[in-house]
């Protein structure tokens, strides 16, 4: 921050491969780097989930090559229970952090926030570059946990103490692996904090003339609000990880109480509380899941107006209000992850109230989306299809939350597959649908080539049906009491449910295979896709008023003047939309 360079606006393009594509300060390159990292991460996370699902459906299956991934975890290529838990931990960690926090926010946000507000770059381009490389370093550190000590941690992405806080005594992977995990996450927090600073400052300070806050598109609002949430949430996770490292490696007792007996020995810890970890983690964790969904919510709302050719019901104002309300409330509900944790039972009632209240802004938001589809003139390109699909899957995921928000019902459903169904629907499905929608929508702008619509539609249909086949049955499993995070189902009441698990596994593998269509489409587009026009979707926001891809400084140095908001669709006249930069006297204003 104490550098000699100007805060923004480089007028000369960088030279050389390294400056252009590796250590670039151009937000567009950085956005693509984040997206690329998320793409790598999602395929790794998906393969991990395949391994998990194979093991759950067919527990004694020897999976060829598995022993290569872990020396101890898969003797004879058959997964041990501890290795299942390690894969589960890495799956969750990779997906929540490196996919869902990366792609919709850091990926698309970095690329399009400056453009959508009319800026030539982010407020702090060099810090932006630093935040990507710190995130990348975090990813490498996390991946290294596969190869150190006795493998990755097995405490879940939630890393509850005391399983995670006593070192190797609690299980395989809990020695070096867990330490690498904690360091990786701490680094990730730093990267996100730096990113948040950039997003917030750019949104407030670098808007073009006429781009008032009210005229900003919903995507910009969503990224801005998410960055605000992240600023405070990651600032909580960072010290939590540091305290965890202190407990594990420096003998402190923040999370470890007295009187624990491990390996036949009474430990020397005293005075700590496992509940403290849960408080600290979930105070971050709940806002985090909103960080994961809000950008996708904004992206889908934005894309839906383009596909529907009409403005959003309630306009930017209502939807932004919903997002703001949800963001604000997200800090008050962390205890709903702790209803049964041993807190004073009154706290459960206390926490359930704001938790239930949060359903209101999300319900209103969904109603706005559905109300926008009413009376629309839908153009069913892939981006629009995924946006419509988002509405369906987000409803499914949100409804299950309704059950879990009530402590009396959570007594039964806690730690069952009902919870797994809930968070996968809202995060793994809805948020990913937002990422897909954004990809099909913005890829033409980002790389200047149109993606293949046929492949896109096949991808959508098979994925939409596939995700329901995977995750809807998990609700039924939860109703039957199927406990989660089990490496195998040996209890009497679980054995009859194994056929359902087999069905889910087949669906997961099939749906996973379908994603290679998407990957192929990306690859094919990059090298052989037809050239994209400036505005292939007849959209209004500022990114569509520049070339595909945009020039180095986004708008070629011209003075932008914004006269309209981003949702002038369905207007009378030769074209049914008004771009934000169109003259003020344009029809329908």
């Amino acid at each position, binding site marked *: 921050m104490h550098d000699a360079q100007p805060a923004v606006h480089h007028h000369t393009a960088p030279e050389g491969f390294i400056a252009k594509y590796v250590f670039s300060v151009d937000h567009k390159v950085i956005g693509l780097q984040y997206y690329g990292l998320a793409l790598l991460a999602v395929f790794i996370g998906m393969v991990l989930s395949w391994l998990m699902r194979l093991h759950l459906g067919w527990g004694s299956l020897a999976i060829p090559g598995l022993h290569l991934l872990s020396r101890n975890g898969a003797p004879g290529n058959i997964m041990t229970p501890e290795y299942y838990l390690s894969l589960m931990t890495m799956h969750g960690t990779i997906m929540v952090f490196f996919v869902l926090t990366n792609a919709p926010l850091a990926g698309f946000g970095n690329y399009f926030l400056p453009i959508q507000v009319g800026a030539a770059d982010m407020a702090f381009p060099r810090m932006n570059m630093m935040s990507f490389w710190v995130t990348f370093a975090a990813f490498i550190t996390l991946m290294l946990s596969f190869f150190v000590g006795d493998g990755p941690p097995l405490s879940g992405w939630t890393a509850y103490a005391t399983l995670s806080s006593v070192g190797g005594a609690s299980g395989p992977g809990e020695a070096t692996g867990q330490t690498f995990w904690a360091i990786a996450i701490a680094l990730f927090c730093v990267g996100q904090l730096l990113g948040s600073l950039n997003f917030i400052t750019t949104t407030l300070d670098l808007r073009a003339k006429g781009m008032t806050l009210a005229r900003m598109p919903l995507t910009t609002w969503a990224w801005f609000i998410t960055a605000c949430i992240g600023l405070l949430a990651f600032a909580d996770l960072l010290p939590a990880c540091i305290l965890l490292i202190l407990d594990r490696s420096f003998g402190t007792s923040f999370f470890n109480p007295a009187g624990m007996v491990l390996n036949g020995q009474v430990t020397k810890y005293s005075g*700590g509380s496992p509940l403290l970890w849960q408080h600290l983690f979930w105070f971050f964790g709940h806002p985090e899941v909103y960080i994961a969904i809000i950008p996708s919510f904004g992206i889908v709302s934005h894309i839906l107006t383009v596909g529907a050719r009409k403005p959003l019901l309630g306009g930017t104002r209502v939807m932004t209000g919903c997002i703001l309300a949800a963001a604000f409330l997200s800090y008050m509900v962390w205890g709903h992850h702790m209803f049964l944790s041993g807190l004073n039972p009154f706290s459960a009632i206390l926490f359930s109230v704001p938790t239930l209240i949060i359903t209101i802004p999300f319900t209103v938001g969904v109603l706005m989306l559905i109300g926008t589809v009413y009376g629309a003139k839908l153009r069913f390109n892939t981006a629009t299809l995924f946006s419509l699909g988002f509405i369906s899957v987000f409803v499914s995921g949100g409804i299950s939350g309704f059950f879990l928000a009530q402590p009396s019902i959570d007594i039964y459903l806690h730690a069952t597959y009902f919870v797994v169904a809930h968070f996968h629907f809202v995060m793994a499905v809805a948020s990913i649908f937002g990422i897909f929608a954004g990809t099909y929508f913005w890829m033409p702008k980002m790389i200047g080539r149109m993606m293949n619509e046929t492949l896109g539609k096949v991808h959508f249909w098979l994925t939409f049906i596939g995700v329901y086949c995977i995750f809807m049955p998990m609700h039924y499993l939860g109703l039957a009491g199927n406990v989660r995070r089990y490496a195998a189902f040996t209890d009497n009441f679980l054995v009859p449910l194994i056929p359902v698990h087999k069905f889910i596994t087949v669906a997961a593998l099939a749906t996973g295979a379908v994603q290679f269509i998407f990957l192929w489409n990306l690859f094919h587009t990059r090298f052989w896709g037809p050239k994209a026009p400036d505005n292939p979707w007849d959209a209004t926001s500022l990114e569509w008023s520049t070339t595909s891809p945009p020039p180095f400084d986004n708008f070629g140095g011209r003075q932008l003047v914004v006269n309209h908001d981003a949702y002038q669709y369905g207007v009378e006249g030769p074209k049914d939309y008004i771009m934000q930069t169109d003259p003020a006297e344009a029809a329908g204003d």
Partner: protein
Amino acid sequence: MESDFHSKGKDIEVSESGAGAHAVIMEASPFGLQSKKLAIWLFIASDAVTFGVLLFGYSYLRLGSLDWSYPFKGASILNGFIMTVILLTSSLTMLAAVIAAKHDDKRRCLRWIGFTILLGTIFAVLHLREWFHMFGEGWAIYKNPLGGSPVFAAGFFGITGLHLLHVISGVIALSILAIRYNNGVLDKNHVETTSLYWHFVDLVWMFVFPIMYLMNAAR
């Protein structure tokens, strides 16, 4: 060379550096702040959360503790008071530096920055002196030689350690600021932005000192 832009009224002008410089009119920042100052405020907000989280955790465990320690006798408390006065004074000297910079009085500003660096260094030295005295008595981040709760030690060294880290970083930042302000690479806005960080570090101490020292005074 303009390194930042200010907002006065509805439209603001930005001058660019380098080849092809031209003015660009933008929307005014809603807080009337230049970007780096806004960024420092945001950083301070997140850092406040970090310290808040640690103080919360410490308090949570302290409230649940049955064997808390109260080791700080008169000498420690006095030392803490002196450190507090030093840090508060350093905020004053920092303020004087900012005022001098606003009047473009570079020499006076640098002098006040120098005093701030000196006071910050003395604070750090006093702090480390106290730490090593405690180490000598058998304290460590994982050990409480009085036999009471080890959380006392962990919390004390953890939180004051993090604060000390912020003080030392601040001293380093101020040193870099002084050098570059002298060279004209940085300007008065940077002086103000850095001062905000320094005041924040002082403000945190105003929480750390009562919570970690006064409330643990020997009874």
